[in-house]
Structures are given as structure tokens and as C-alpha cells.
């Protein structure tokens, strides 16, 4: 949809290419969860490419329980006015009015997130209707392509948010990247049945088979807590990482944030990874994914 309103039709805002371009500028970077302006400043100074503004990090959402919703617009506005890097914020799956509010607030990107309590258990937001980009979670290629079909301009592998356990992030990244590799060598006549098998839009699947990658930027998320975790996901082949609870639930957030930024850039440089990983203090204590009851898993939300 074009929001061109500069008194003429020569300017196109909110076009598909303009929306996809913002995540392209974030590649190779770290997007950090922050719950107030002070944390946003620390994240920016540590070299974050963007911040995710929210009231509670996923670890606290887990601990506190209850219904998790979009954050207070006042908090989001404070964060927007504090930093110069892009600001993202989360809405509940399917809650298009929360998304309208965030667009009006002037956030740079909306995360339709399984970390919040879903508002709709059948349908996601029609993201093509919005003039700013959306990022959505995915566990596999079918889910990623359904979200892109709805208008997502960026994908993040879900992992299991708020655990500090990287195992699910690895599983989801390997699944999506593995399926893409498989597609790129699949005979053409098999593609339609594969699209049916994974419930993916056929045209998008054809494009992935041809390009050998998703048509949008793909970051990893959910359980990344150390520089080594970030570098692991980068070596697996994602375009960048989200770090949620992993930074501000650790003993020394500023230093850890900086180390994760460096590890994400120099992700194949083991000597550098060894240097930046030193003396970071206690990481977030964490929660093994296998200790979670199936009802406690956030990644299964999304349809």
C-alpha cells in the first residue's frame, strides 16, 4: 500500500521494496530487547542496530504469567526519543489494532510476536495493509513463507524466547536453511507437492527454489545469551540476531551487549570470540527447554 501523501503521486511510501529495505540495512547486526530508555541507550552505545521496546523481557513474561500485551505507548515513545537507531515493538498475533497504534506512534518495524499472548488463534495480521515493515517468527520454511505471503518484510527464527537455551534457535535455523537447500536442488515437478506438504504459497516457494534464500532478511532469535551463541547462529547462515532476555538479565549488560555485537560481525574469528567472551560476568541463569511443559512453549503459537 502506498502512503504517498507529499501532495503528489511522485513519492511512494510504504511500498514493498521500501518496507523490505529497512531489515536489509540491519543485516550483520544485533537487535536488543529493552524495557526502558536507559536500557535503550546502553544498547545503542553497545552497537545494537535496533532495539525492541517492550514492558517485560520474555524471561519475565514467563515468570509472571498472565496476558502479555503491546507495551504502553508512553514507554515506546520515550524509547523512540532516546535513540537514533530504529525502534521495533511487539504486537499480539492477529491484533491488527495494536499494530495500527504502533504505526501511528512512529515505530520503524512491528514484531507480530508469539512471545505475547495471541489475540487470534486462526489468523495473523494482514501485514500488506501497513506502510511499515513487520517481522514475524517462524520454525520452518512453510511458516516463514505463509508470513511473507501475509506481508512480513523480515523473518526471525523463533527459538524459545526467555529461556537462554539456544537449542530451539539452532533447530529452527537449521530447519529453515536445510529446507531451502533441499528446494534448490529439487526437480521442478516436485515443487507443487512440496508447497502442499509444507503449506507454503507456491509462488513464494518457486522464488526460494530459484534464489536459494528467503525473499526477505532472516534473523535468529529465542535463547541467544552469549557471544558464542550469536556466532553459532551466524555460522549456520542467518543474517543477524535478536537478543532478548540474554542481555539485560545478565550481570553486566553493557559489556555483554558489546561482546555479542562484535561476535556477530567477526563470527568466524575464534581468536576474537575468545577475547570478547572473557570476563562478561554471569549470563542469564536460563531455563532448559526440556524442563518446560509443552503448554509453556511460546514457539508453538502461530498458524
Amino acid at each position, binding site marked *: 500500500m502506498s502512503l504517498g501523501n507529499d501532495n503528489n503521486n511522485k513519492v511512494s511510501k510504504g511500498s514493498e521494496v521500501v518496507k523490505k529495505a529497512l531489515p536489509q540495512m540491519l543485516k550483520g*547486526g544485533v537487535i536488543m530487547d529493552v524495557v526502558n530508555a536507559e536500557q535503550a541507550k546502553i544498547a545503542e552505545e553497545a552497537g545494537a542496530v535496533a532495539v525492541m521496546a517492550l514492558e517485560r523481557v520474555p524471561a519475565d513474561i514467563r515468570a509472571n504469567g498472565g496476558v502479555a500485551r503491546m507495551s504502553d505507548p508512553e514507554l515506546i515513545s520515550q524509547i523512540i526519543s532516546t535513540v537514533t*537507531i530504529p525502534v521495533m515493538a511487539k504486537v499480539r498475533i492477529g491484533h491488527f489494532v495494536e499494530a495500527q497504534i504502533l504505526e501511528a506512534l512512529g515505530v*520503524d518495524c512491528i514484531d507480530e510476536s508469539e512471545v505475547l499472548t495471541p489475540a487470534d488463534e486462526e489468523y495473523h495480521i494482514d501485514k500488506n495493509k501497513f506502510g511499515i515493515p513487520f517481522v514475524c517468527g517462524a520454525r520452518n520454511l512453510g511458516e516463514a513463507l505463509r508470513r511473507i505471503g501475509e506481508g512480513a518484510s523480515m523473518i526471525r527464527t523463533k527459538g524459545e524466547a526467555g529461556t537462554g537455551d539456544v537449542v530451539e534457535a539452532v533447530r529452527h535455523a537449521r530447519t529453515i536453511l536445510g529446507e531451502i537447500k533441499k528446494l534448490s536442488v529439487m526437480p521442478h515437478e516436485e515443487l507443487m507437492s512440496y508447497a502442499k506438504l509444507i503449506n507454503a504459497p507456491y509462488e513464494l516457494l518457486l522464488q526460494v527454489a530459484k534464489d536459494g534464500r528467503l525473499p526477505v532478511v532472516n534473523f535468529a532469535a529465542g535463547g541467544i545469551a552469549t557471544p558464542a551463541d550469536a556466532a553459532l547462529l551466524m555460522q549456520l547462515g542467518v543474517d543477524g540476531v535478536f537478543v532478548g532476555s540474554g542481555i539485560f538479565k545478565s550481570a553486566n549488560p553493557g559489556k555483554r551487549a558489546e561482546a555479542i555485537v562484535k561476535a556477530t560481525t567477526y563470527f568466524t574469528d575464534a581468536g576474537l570470540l575468545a577475547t570478547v567472551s572473557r570476563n562478561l560476568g554471569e549470563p542469564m541463569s536460563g531455563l532448559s527447554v526440556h524442563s518446560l511443559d509443552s503448554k509453556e512453549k511460546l514457539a508453538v503459537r502461530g498458524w
Partner: protein
Amino acid sequence: MSLVIGVLALQGDVSEHCHAIQSCGSKAYPIKYENDLDHIDGLIIPGGESTTIAKLSYGSINSAVSKVTKNNQTLESKISQSITSTKIKAKPEQDNSNNTIPYSSLINKIKTLGLSGLPIYGTCMGSIFLAKYIENNLNQLSMQLMDIKITRNAFGSQKHSFETTLTINCLNPPKYQAIFIRAPLIIATGQNVEVLAYLPDYINLNQDYPTKAIMVKEKNFLASVFHPELTKDYRIHEFFLDMVKK
């Protein structure tokens, strides 16, 4: 002879630039370390986040910023001072074990190579890195190679990002579809800077400026605040490759 063009690969839309360079028949070479610079004929600084690159380049933003701030304040009003009069020496903090890696050597070497004639093209964030003056936001660092003053996020947040058709007279034909993403704007240029394109006057800005340049050239440096690498029209990359050939 195939030219080798380096693309600074610390963060940002590196692969898009590499693809553009390859589509023009040259070789692209991602640059992460000082030694990577030894074999290139030209360099592109891509789009990305300037605070992130500053952090990665200098180790610590704060230690270097105090010096840059001083320079910016004394020189801000004298836009056409010669490049060599501004010397910035950024050194990483020594008291923090995270910062013992001399990231700044990469940027210092690029600056030295630029001053000795290496063609460098900066897009969006890259143009900020080439500018001698950055308005309002002193918590930024640049290599100060071009005699231009730039303001970050001149158009506002992502909902104000846009695409439009420009007229760029050094291209043939001059019509060019350009993409601006949270773009900066060049608001003053020194006398040796050639302005290749101005912002069309139908684009609204929160604040007006006497000069609104979006693509400029000075000696071996080229800068655009928009992103040619995001389109399939690679004529601006070809224009840069022509600069490299000369």
C-alpha cells in the same frame, strides 16, 4: 582487466552491493580486516547503522567522541576548510578487556588510502562516514574525507522512507528510481564538491535547509544518501567503476 571492489563488511547491506558490483562485471571483495584492503581498486561503504559501525570500528565510541566533538565544534561553521586540516585520532580504550582489539586500524587505513587516492563510494550510512561534518549528533564518527555537512534521519522514521524518480544528469538517460531508507541529507557542500543530484522540491522535510544535496562527488569520493544497490538499475555503480578506472 577485472577491477576488484571492496565492500566494507562490518554490518549492513553488503551482499546487495557485492551483487551490484558483480552484475557490472567486476569482482566484489568483502572487507573485515585491515589486510583485506591490500588488493582492492576501489571501496564501497554500504548502508547500515552508523552507530554500530562506529562502535565496531573504534572499539569504544566514547573515547573517540570527545576528540571528534572538539573538532566538530570548532570547525562546524567553516565548511570549506581543506580536508587535511581536520585530523582525527581515535584510539580504543585500553582499560577494558573488550576493547583491546585495534578496530580503529581498519578505519584509519581506509582513511589513509582515501587521502592517497583510493576511490571510495558511500551509500546512506556510507555517506555519513565520508562527511566531514555531522549535524546534531556528535555521538558519531566519520573518516571526514568529504567537505560536506550531513544530517542523519532527515526525513524521520521508517514510515517516511520512500522511493521516487530522480533526475541525475550524469546518467544517460537521467531518470533514476531511487530508494531512501531513514535517509540522511547533505545540507552543505564545500567549493570543491560537485553536486550530482539535489532532493526534488516535492519531497517534504520537517525542517528546511538552504542546500539539499543527495548525490555528490569530490575528487576520488562519491556519496549518495539513497540506495542504488537495492534496485536492478546499476548505472550508479557503473559510474563509480568509471571513476575507479580513471
